[in-house]
């Protein structure tokens, strides 16, 4: 039970001072996700913008209640996707999901996940994987809702 591999300093830093926290305008979709087993909750907004080069994630804002892992994960996620092309952001979601479901066997790519690689240790704690995934799932849900509306701002 290697606690320090779970609670990496980077994670605790994000937990103590989360980035991009709070709910902001404008946004095209807002979702509310809960982890039914433990009650962790996140409300999350996505603001996308269509540009000639593709759809860009202009902002992700959120209000999260939950443990250090879920809070830190929201902070890291926002860092990673804001300003990215939507497809790139979704591929980061994919990479993070793969890491989390890898039972500690997947080697994360720092170029893709940056601070997110600190969550590699979480994958060894099955009960915490859902905490780490909560805000990522909310982001994907919200982004796909906007895409389905077919009307990014």
């Amino acid at each position, binding site marked *: 039970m290697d606690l320090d591999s779970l609670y990496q300093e980077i994670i605790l830093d994000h937990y103590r001072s989360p980035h991009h926290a709070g709910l902001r305008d404008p946004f095209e979709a807002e979702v509310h996700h*809960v982890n*039914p*087993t*433990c009650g962790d909750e996140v409300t999350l907004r996505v603001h996308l913008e269509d540009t000639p080069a593709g759809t860009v994630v202009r902002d992700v804002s959120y209000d999260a209640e939950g443990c250090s892992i879920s809070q830190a994960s929201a902070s890291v996620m926002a860092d990673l996707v804001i300003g990215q092309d939507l497809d790139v952001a979704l591929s980061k979601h994919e990479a993070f999901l793969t890491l989390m479901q890898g039972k500690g066997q997947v080697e994360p790519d720092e170029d893709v996940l940056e601070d997110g690689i600190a969550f590699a240790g979480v994958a060894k704690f*099955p*009960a915490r994987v859902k905490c780490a995934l909560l805000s990522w799932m909310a982001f994907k849900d919200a982004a796909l809702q906007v895409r389905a509306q077919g009307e990014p701002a």
Partner: protein
Amino acid sequence: MNGLLPDLDVIRKDFPILERVLDGGHRLVYLDSANTSQKPQVVIDAMVDHLERHNANISRAMHQLGAESTEAFEAARDTVARFLNAPSRDEVIFTKNATEALNLVARTFPLGPGDRVVITEMEHHSNIVPWQLATERSGAELRWFGLTDDGELDLSNIDELLVPGTKVVALTWVSNMLGTINPVAEIARRAHEIGAVVVLDASQAAPQLPVDVQAVDADFVVFTGHKVTGPTGIGVLWGKAELLNALPPFLGGGEMIATVTMEKSTWAPIPSKFEAGTPPITEAIGLGAAIEYISHVGLDAIHAHEQAITGYLLEGLATVGGVRVLGPLDASKRGGAVAFELAGVHPHDIAQLLDSRGIAVRAGHHCAKPAHKRFGVQASTRASSYLYTTPAEIDALIDGLEYTKNYFKV
């Protein structure tokens, strides 16, 4: 004998109860497996190991025991999903038995006046009563397939039965009384043509046939743990995800919610939505071990074994004067359960006489009163085999029937 499991002796050693010596020094001859199957050591051990080393509540408990328990429980779901060839593990719902699984569908599936539900005359009560209650509640109409004299489904009026407006066709894959194996894929095809969903009761099929929910294109399939060498207290409902997602919840309570306020609650995604309260954890783990066990022996091999034994049993019964078998006489058309009458002796008395020689069979209506009525009998005697049944046990049964006839002077 062709088709028998090659390692029958070894398999029998897996089942501790088969060593049991009964009153009068008779070694148990267990021919009541369609009622409930016996349990291999590996299933018992899996449950004991869980209780002695890993016991904890699941999902909600995030300590090590909780993680171990959750992992074992969810691994059982994976095992069941593979066993059924289910497209997704989330489509596997654990219930307390097949009966609850059938009630779950019958209670939640939307029905109203003008709708029709079609069942068959060979159903187990657990696939009759829930639909009687559901149609009565909703004002829908209940109809059923009759049976031929050979104990097969009478499909001659299928066009009248399966008409538009039919919402559900619920039938057993293998009859627990007649042994008949039904053409479920063909009936599913016909049902889907008119937009009905198909509910298959695989309680007797899952123990002895490969059950591939995709190959037969079912919409819901149920079976029960205790008949597949698993424990009591657990059953399975499999359903197509889109159908399960659309159904309202059945039981409300812990674990099936997304969020709860005093005013209003919302539901978790499947499978949790249908698993309110603490599930049968140890039982799911036991079921997982059971399915691993029978899968390891192989469902095709078990099926061949059952057909060989059943063929031998039918031959044996044919030598006993006064016996009338209910259901198909061709072993290849049936599962390993044979119900019969013996002229002049009531089934209870037959069962009693056999029991005095250590032979366990079932007597009565086997929860299939309408099928009995169809054949003009009130009760029958049923001998049912499984992967541990030997030809010698069938010989003992046939001897026992001759003894019975002598005893009652018929």
